[in-house]
């Protein structure tokens, strides 16, 4: 039934002197992203940045790997959870690229301090996403924010 209706659209469009997009404006362009999807995109992009920073820090300072690798694994788990919540909308791709790439500092202690600041900022940003989010998404953001808060404490006691 739906197929028949769609195939007859050009006929009615020709009669009315307009193309099909005038009859079904929703088909002309993808609908705007919902607030939840926009927030998820931002959360994914932020996790990508954190994962990148951890990977580059571990690559620069192998002595920090035992302390940083478990935290990196948890960020990868965050990323997987956030990505799993998104059904990619038409015309939009879930971010796969790093948007912020600050250089790894020249000393291990400074590198850990940068990670600590990044974790703290990320935790605060998660809380900003709570407003208006669907309940299950809000809980995911809050849980990730708590995880990042524990990372700040863990980094306080890292060997650097």
């Amino acid at each position: 039934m739906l197929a028949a209706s769609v195939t007859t659209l050009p006929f009615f469009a020709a009669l009315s002197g307009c193309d099909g997009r005038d009859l079904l404006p929703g088909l002309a362009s993808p609908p705007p992203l919902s607030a939840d999807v926009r927030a998820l995109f931002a959360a994914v992009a932020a996790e990508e940045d954190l994962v990148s920073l951890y990977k580059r820090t571990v690559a620069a300072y192998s002595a920090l790997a035992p302390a940083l690798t478990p935290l990196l694994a948890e960020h990868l788990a965050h990323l997987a959870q956030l990505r799993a919540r998104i059904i990619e909308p038409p015309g939009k791709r879930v971010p796969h690229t790093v948007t912020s790439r600050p250089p790894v500092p020249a000393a291990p202690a400074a590198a850990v301090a940068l990670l600590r600041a990044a974790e703290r900022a990320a935790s605060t940003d998660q809380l900003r996403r709570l407003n208006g989010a669907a309940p299950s998404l809000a809980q995911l953001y809050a849980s990730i924010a708590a995880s990042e808060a524990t990372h700040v404490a863990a980094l306080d006691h890292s060997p650097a």
Partner: protein
Amino acid sequence: MTHAGKLTPQALQALQAALAAEHAAIYGYGIVGAMVSGADQALALTDWKLHQEARDTLEAMIVNLGATPVAASVAYRLPFAVRDAQSARMLAVTLEDGVTQAYLGLVAVTEQALRVFGALAMQPPANRAASWRGSTVAFPGMPSGSITKVLSRPGHGRSLSRGAGLTRLTRGRAAGRAPGR
């Protein structure tokens, strides 16, 4: 603070669940403190006091909302036998996980202020759980069944299910620092 009549029943229920978890933690830390010594005992005492402060905060919030705070049970059934320092530390992890999960329940309510309160309140117990456990987890407060499907490392980030906390012996069931000290 909003009157209870303006809160959704779910929001008040979530506040009461958080209070019940704090009651359970206060009881449980009495056992933890008795079974550990030295620095761990000092830490248990500190954590016990922090849970008392959190309980007082929640009770005041609930009273201000015009409702009656849920009372502590006389005693609680422990989720496992606590016979030495190691099992006492495991109990501390269980207590903190239970409190973390209870505060995460507040994040699901529609009242934005309570959401933020819950999200912030779950961070100290998540930190204390990590401290007693000696490691962090990926999803503090989340039941394991809700996250295992997409975790890259099965079993990592496991948190305790809702039934893993202490159990009230007289009435119903209660909700359940730096790592590597």
